[in-house]
């Protein structure tokens, strides 16, 4: 039995090790936390228990597979960090060597806090682990955690996350501050049967600008793990936030990335994701536009092989006038990998002059690979520009012949075309990052591909 099968069978039988008892132990160990936080955990635990398991029959899980995304016997790691492992991972946190500051987390423990430059400190930038932020200024974090949440089907996982969240990233940019250089955070999983619940909070003040890159990685290939990451971006008026997430966890991991983006008046949020790890991954993305003139772009790349499953849901929620949202999801699927895309554009009655776009393009390379696409529109305003489209295609035989006629072998030709498929997204990323992303994808489809094969 593969780790995946073990995990899902235990989950089905209710043998998961996270239970009332484990939660109460976890809670007791954190008795010195502020009362509101303990209450918050208890409230969410209750919600977790009371929320029924998702089923494939739920509209929000259509074509998905909730069982594959079970927690199995994974548990949050409470023990001490092995310093030699920490030091190895600090060294391997090298996706973006030129980053201005970085935070490294290991199993939801912070093993490196950011060293901010004198300039950044003077400007009042806060970029620290969530654990540290909760200790230093809990009342500042509180409204972010207690903010009303919405989900696209993973309410149960969000509740579980809230009950167990311990660490993550807190990034606050004061009004008017522009951070030109990129910040980076690493979320490592190490050891057998670990569960992590990292929370990312980005709070960008009026007229501020920042770029954060986050990487979700595993130290080893063989251990089962569960990742349930929740992220929220709040862009103040005219702020400009770019958040880039890379998920390259091992193939025994079940992974949730549950994001919400909240855009104030005339603000801009640019969200870019590259998903290529884990055996099963669910990505939910809320694009909230409650004030006029906001703009949110979501660019997503999925590079899948073996029997990986990527399940992606997005909702573009236009509640105010003259906002723009643009979702582009491009998936390349090798072997018997599967992807699901479900997107909804919702335009409120008063959200006139909305521009909303939603595109899902699937490049199906493996003969048994499969892509399901469910684009959707719900438009109540009458003066809007909205479009949605989904295409699924194979590699064009005439393009392949053209490459081969230059002496390029079939496999290399396919790789070039696959990388080319992602290029319109890659070329929009910051220069040093786009090259890193390119080589990650190349690596996955060259050597990592063999690993992904079952």
């Amino acid at each position, binding site marked *: 039995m593969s780790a995946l099968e073990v995990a899902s069978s235990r989950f089905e039988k209710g043998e998961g090790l996270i239970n009332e008892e484990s939660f109460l132990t976890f809670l007791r160990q954190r008795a010195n936390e502020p009362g509101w936080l303990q209450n918050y955990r208890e409230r969410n635990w209750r919600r977790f228990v009371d929320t029924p398991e998702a089923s494939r029959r739920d509209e929000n899980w259509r074509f998905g597979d909730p069982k594959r995304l079970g927690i199995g016997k994974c548990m949050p790691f409470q023990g001490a960090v092995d310093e030699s492992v920490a030091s190895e991972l600090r060294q391997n946190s090298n996706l973006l060597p030129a980053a201005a500051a970085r935070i490294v987390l290991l199993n939801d423990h912070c093993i490196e806090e950011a060293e901010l430059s004198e300039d950044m400190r003077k400007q009042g930038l806060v970029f620290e682990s969530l654990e540290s932020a909760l200790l230093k200024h809990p009342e500042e974090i509180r409204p972010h955690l207690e903010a009303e949440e919405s989900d696209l089907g993973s309410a149960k996982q969000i509740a579980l996350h809230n009950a167990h969240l311990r660490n993550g990233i807190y990034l606050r940019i004061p009004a008017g501050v522009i951070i030109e250089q990129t910040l980076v955070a690493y979320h490592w999983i190490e050891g057998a049967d670990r569960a992590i619940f990292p929370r990312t909070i980005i709070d960008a003040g009026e007229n501020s600008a920042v770029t954060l890159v986050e990487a979700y990685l595993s130290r080893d290939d063989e251990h089962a793990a569960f990742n349930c990451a929740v992220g929220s971006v709040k862009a103040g008026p005219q702020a400009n936030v770019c958040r880039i997430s890379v998920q390259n966890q091992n193939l025994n991991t079940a992974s949730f990335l549950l994001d919400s983006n909240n855009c104030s008046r005339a603000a801009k949020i640019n969200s870019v994701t590259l998903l290529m790890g884990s055996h099963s991954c669910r990505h939910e993305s809320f694009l909230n536009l409650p004030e006029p003139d906001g703009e949110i772009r979501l660019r997503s790349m999925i590079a899948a092989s073996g029997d990986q499953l990527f399940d992606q849901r997005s909702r573009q929620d236009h509640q105010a006038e003259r906002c723009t949202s643009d979702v582009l999801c491009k998936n390349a699927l090798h072997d018997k990998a599967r992807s699901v895309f479900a997107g909804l554009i919702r335009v409120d009655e008063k959200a006139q002059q909305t521009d909303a776009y939603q595109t899902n393009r699937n490049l199906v390379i493996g003969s048994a690979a499969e892509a399901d696409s469910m684009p959707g529109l719900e438009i109540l305003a009458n003066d809007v520009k909205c479009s949605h489209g989904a295409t699924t295609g194979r590699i064009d035989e005439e393009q392949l012949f053209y490459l*081969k*006629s*230059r*002496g*390029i072998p079939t496999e*290399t030709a396919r790789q070039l*075309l696959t990388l080319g498929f992602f*290029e319109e997204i890659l070329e929009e990323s910051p220069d040093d990052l786009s090259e890193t992303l390119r080589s990650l994808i190349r690596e996955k489809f060259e050597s990592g591909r063999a690993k992904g094969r079952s």
Partner: protein
Amino acid sequence: MSVLGIQNLRACIGHDKEILKGLCLDLPQGEVHAIMGPNGSGKSTLAKAIAGHDDYEVTDGSVLMDDTSILGMEPDEIARMGLFLAFQYPMELPGVSIANFIRAALQARLGEGERIDASNYYKDLYEKMDELGIDRQFTSRSVNEGFSGGEKKRCEILQMAMLQPRYCILDETDSGLDIDALRIVAQGVNAMRGSDRGILVITHYQRLLEYIVPDRVHVMWDGRIVRSGDKALAVELEEKGYDWVKAELVA
């Protein structure tokens, strides 16, 4: 012998429609030959069948490159052996830059463990781009995407110049070119003439042959070479039209 030798070649598209009907042609290194013929005579089929396109089924005959049969080989193998096909309609490759494309083609010709020297590569590439009047910014542009007809054809010649093939087939390289672009492309081809290369120019019109002067001219009709001669044949053909060949064939 250094020859691309085509003997009695028969090829079909699909299962039954025979397009090449026993075509014979020898293209020796050091020479430029031209094939002229009306639409539908099988010129493009000939180019693609030789290059190994799997839409075309060869049912009889042989194609030898320097005494090695290339029929049944994969298109990339044939290309690495030394054949280059300049396309009548070059494909667009979104997201694949010219620099990466040509680099991958050169890399494929190296042995295991050998890598291309990047600085020499770019030096060579820029030099050839300058000769063909291609802006250097094109190196990072996607192959043929949004190119004008002339840019596409120049890009084909650039690839040919970089790959240094032993045999080149230029399929209607003049189509879609204005007179200035035609001159530049012809210059590029002429610069590649040499004792170690055979070039086959496929064209409709005699015009291109004023700029690329062939050693031999062949007239293709209904899947066969029906007449061969020197460059005067092209002029004669232009004057009298293809009906003249047809009339002679019937007679």
